[in-house]
C-alpha cells in the first residue's frame, strides 16, 4: 500500500496517520514494527474511526510491549490523535520526563521527536551538538518542549539573520549613488566653495510586498506554528505584507500581522479548526482571495507566499486555475510545501503537477536548512 496515493483528497488518510504515528512511537523507542502497524491498521479499520477510546485501547495493545511503554502510550496517543493538548515538562526524582495535559482550547501545533537527550546525542551524533542534530530534524519530529523552544530560537535567529541581510543590502544599495549637485554646491558655500559634504539623491525606498497564504489544516498544523513564527519575524521589516490563513475558508489575519502576538494566532487557528479530521478547501479559499483581495493587495511587485501541502477537497485542476489567476498578477508565487521533504524526486506529488507551471518557486520548509533556502529565495 502506497501511503502517498491516499492524498487524492485532503482528508488525511488513516493509513498515513497510522504510519506517521508509528514512526513517532519508534522515535520514543516503541517497537512499532510492520507486524504491529498491520495490526494497528486492522484495529483502525474495524473500530477506529468511530470511537477514540476504542482506537486508543486497540493501538495500545498493538504497539506497547513493556510496562514503561504502556504507561507512556496514552500521552503520546492523546498528543497525536487529539487536537487539544499542551505540553508541560516535569522533572521527577528519577530524571526528567515530559507529561502532557489536555486543555480544551489549545491546538496541537508541533510534531514529535524526543531523540535529543544528551546521552542519545553522544551516542548517535558523533561530535555533533544539539544544534546540528536538531537543525536537520524534520519539525514534525520535534516534540520535546525543550527542543521545541530551541527550534523556536533557531527559527528566530534565522529570521533575524535574514532581516540583517536585508538591511545591509538596503544600506549598500543606498550608498554610492548619484550625487545631487545642486544640494552639494549649496552646502559647499559655507566652506567657501570647498566641497566637504556631498549630498546624494535619496533613493526611493520600494519595499517588497508580501501576501502570505497559510494552510492551517490538520495535515499542516505540525509546521504551521513554526512557519508563522519564522515569517512573522522575517516580514517584520516588510510593513506592507498581508497574511491570510485558510482551512475550510479564508481568514484574514490582517496587514502587518507581525505585530500580533503568537497567542492571537493560536486563537485564530484554534477557532478555525474543525474536528480532528477535517477537509481543507484550498481552491475555494483561493477563489475568495481572488474575488475579494486580489485587486487591492497584489501588485506587480508583490510576492505571494503559499504555505500548504496542496491536499484539497477539490480537483487539482480547480486549484491550478485559482493559482493561475493570482500568479498572473503577482511578481512571483512561492509555494512552500513541508511535505516535499518526504517525497522523492522519482515520485513527484501528482496533486501539484497542474499547479507547478504557475509557481516561481516550489520548495520545502520542513527543517532549518530548507527555511534558510527559503530566506534566500524571498530576498532574491
Amino acid at each position: 500500500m502506497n501511503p502517498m496515493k491516499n492524498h487524492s483528497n485532503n482528508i488525511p488518510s488513516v493509513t498515513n496517520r497510522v504510519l506517521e504515528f508509528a514512526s513517532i512511537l519508534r522515535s520514543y523507542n516503541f517497537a512499532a514494527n510492520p507486524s504491529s502497524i498491520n495490526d494497528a491498521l486492522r484495529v483502525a479499520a474495524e473500530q477506529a474511526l468511530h470511537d477514540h477510546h476504542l482506537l486508543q485501547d486497540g493501538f495500545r495493545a498493538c504497539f506497547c510491549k513493556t510496562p514503561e511503554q504502556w504507561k507512556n502510550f496514552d500521552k503520546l496517543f492523546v498528543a497525536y490523535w487529539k487536537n487539544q493538548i499542551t505540553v508541560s515538562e516535569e522533572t521527577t526524582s528519577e530524571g526528567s520526563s515530559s507529561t502532557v495535559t489536555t486543555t480544551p482550547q489549545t491546538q496541537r501545533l508541533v510534531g514529535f521527536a524526543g531523540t535529543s537527550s544528551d546521552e542519545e546525542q553522544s551516542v548517535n551524533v558523533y561530535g555533533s551538538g544539539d544544534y546540528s542534530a536538531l537543525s536537520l530534524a524534520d519539525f514534525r519530529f520535534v516534540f520535546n518542549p525543550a527542543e521545541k523552544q530551541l527550534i523556536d530560537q533557531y527559527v528566530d535567529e534565522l529570521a533575524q539573520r535574514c532581516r540583517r541581510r536585508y538591511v545591509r543590502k538596503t544600506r549598500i544599495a543606498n550608498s554610492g549613488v548619484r550625487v545631487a549637485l545642486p544640494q552639494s554646491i549649496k552646502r559647499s558655500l559655507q566652506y567657501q566653495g570647498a566641497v566637504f559634504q556631498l549630498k546624494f539623491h535619496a533613493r526611493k525606498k520600494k519595499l517588497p510586498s508580501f501576501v502570505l497564504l497559510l494552510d492551517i489544516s490538520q495535515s499542516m498544523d505540525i509546521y504551521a506554528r513554526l512557519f508563522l513564527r519564522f515569517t512573522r519575524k522575517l516580514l517584520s521589516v516588510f510593513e506592507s505584507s498581508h497574511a491570510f490563513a485558510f482551512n475550510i475558508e479564508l481568514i484574514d489575519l490582517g496587514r502587518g500581522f507581525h505585530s500580533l502576538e503568537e497567542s492571537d494566532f493560536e486563537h485564530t487557528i484554534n477557532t478555525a479548526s474543525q474536528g480532528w479530521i477535517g477537509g481543507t478547501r484550498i481552491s475555494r479559499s483561493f477563489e475568495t482571495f481572488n474575488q475579494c483581495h486580489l485587486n487591492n493587495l497584489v501588485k506587480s511587485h508583490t510576492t505571494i507566499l503559499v504555505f500548504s501541502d496542496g491536499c484539497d477537497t477539490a480537483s487539482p485542476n480547480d486549484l491550478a486555475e485559482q493559482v493561475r489567476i493570482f500568479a498572473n498578477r503577482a511578481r512571483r508565487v512561492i509555494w512552500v510545501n513541508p511535505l516535499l521533504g518526504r517525497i522523492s524526486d522519482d515520485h513527484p506529488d501528482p496533486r501539484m503537477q497542474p499547479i507547478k507551471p504557475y509557481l516561481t518557486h516550489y520548495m520545502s520548509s520542513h527543517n532549518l536548512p530548507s527555511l534558510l533556502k527559503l530566506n534566500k529565495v524571498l530576498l532574491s
Partner: protein
Amino acid sequence: MDYATTDKALDLPGKDRAQLAGSLKQQGYVTDPSLISSLYLLEKLGKPLLVEGEAGVGKTEIAKCLAKAQGRKLIRLQCYEGLDAQHALYDWDYQRQLLAIQMSGQMSGQMSGQQQFRGESAEQTPSTSIPDIKQALYSEDYLLKRPLFAAIASEEPVVLLIDEIDRADQEFEALLLEVLSDFQISIPELGTFTARSRPSVILTSNGIRDLSDALRRRCLYHYIDYPPSDKEQKIIRSRLPGIDENLAKQVVSYVQKLRTVGMRKTPGVAESIDWASALMAIGVVDLRAEPELTDSTLSCLVKTRNDLELLKREQAALYGNEPDEEPQQ
C-alpha cells in the same frame, strides 16, 4: 489499501465487545474497557496476548474466566526453570513403546514357530519387520500430547494459558516462537502439525526476567496494575457476594495503604480477597472493633518476616483515617 475506506470499517465491533464484557462479568471478573479491547483483539487478530503485571492482580484469572465465558476448554502450561519441549510440546510414551516392542518380539517368535509348523517362509509376515515396527512405534498412538501440542491438535478452539513465562528459560522462549507465530509444531518423526482451530493464547509474566523482543513482537500486550480503590471493592464484592459493605471498604483501604509502605511482597488483589474471606469466616465486620482477630488473619497478606515487622511498625497508620470516615457536616 486504505482501511478507512474499506467496507470492513463499517463492521462495528460494539456488539461483540459488549457481549464479551457481559460474559466476563457473569464469571465474576471485573474488567475495564482497555482489557476488553485487548481480549477482543486477541480473538479478532488471532495473536497471542501477553499480560504483564504484579503478582496477584488477576492475570491468570483472565484466561480462566475467558475460557468459562466462551465455553472453551482451558489448557494451562505452568512455566518453570528447566521447562523443555518434552514437558511443553510432546513426548513419546517410552513405556508403551517398550511393551509394544516386547509384545511384537514375542508375537514374532510365536508366529515363526507356527510358520515353521505350517512350512511357510518368513517373508510372508510383513507386520513383524523392523521398519514396520519402527513406524508403528513413532505414530500418534504413542505420542503424549503436552499442553502446547494438545492446544494445537484440538478440534475445538481452546484457551491456552502459558502461565509465568518469565520463569522459563530463554531456550524455551525460542521454542515458543514457532508455536505462537504459525500455530504449528514440527515433529521430526511425524511432520508438521498445524492448528485445526486457532487457540486463544494468553501468556502471563510477573516481570521476574525480561522477555525477548522476538516473543514480545509476536504478541499483543496488556499491562495490569494494582486496581484503584473502587475497582478493588467491586472485585471483592464480586468474588465474595455476602461480604459486608463496610468490611469490604475497610479491607480495600487497608490493603491500598499497605501497598504504599514498601513491603517486599506487596499484597495483590488475590491476597485482598483471601483476607476478606478469612475475616468473613471468623465473623469480623469491623477491623478496628476487633483488632486481635484481625491481626490473627494478617498472614493472608504478609508473606515474609520482614514484612510482618514492617506491618507492626506501621499498624497505627494503616488503621487510621479510613476513607469512609468523612467528617459530618
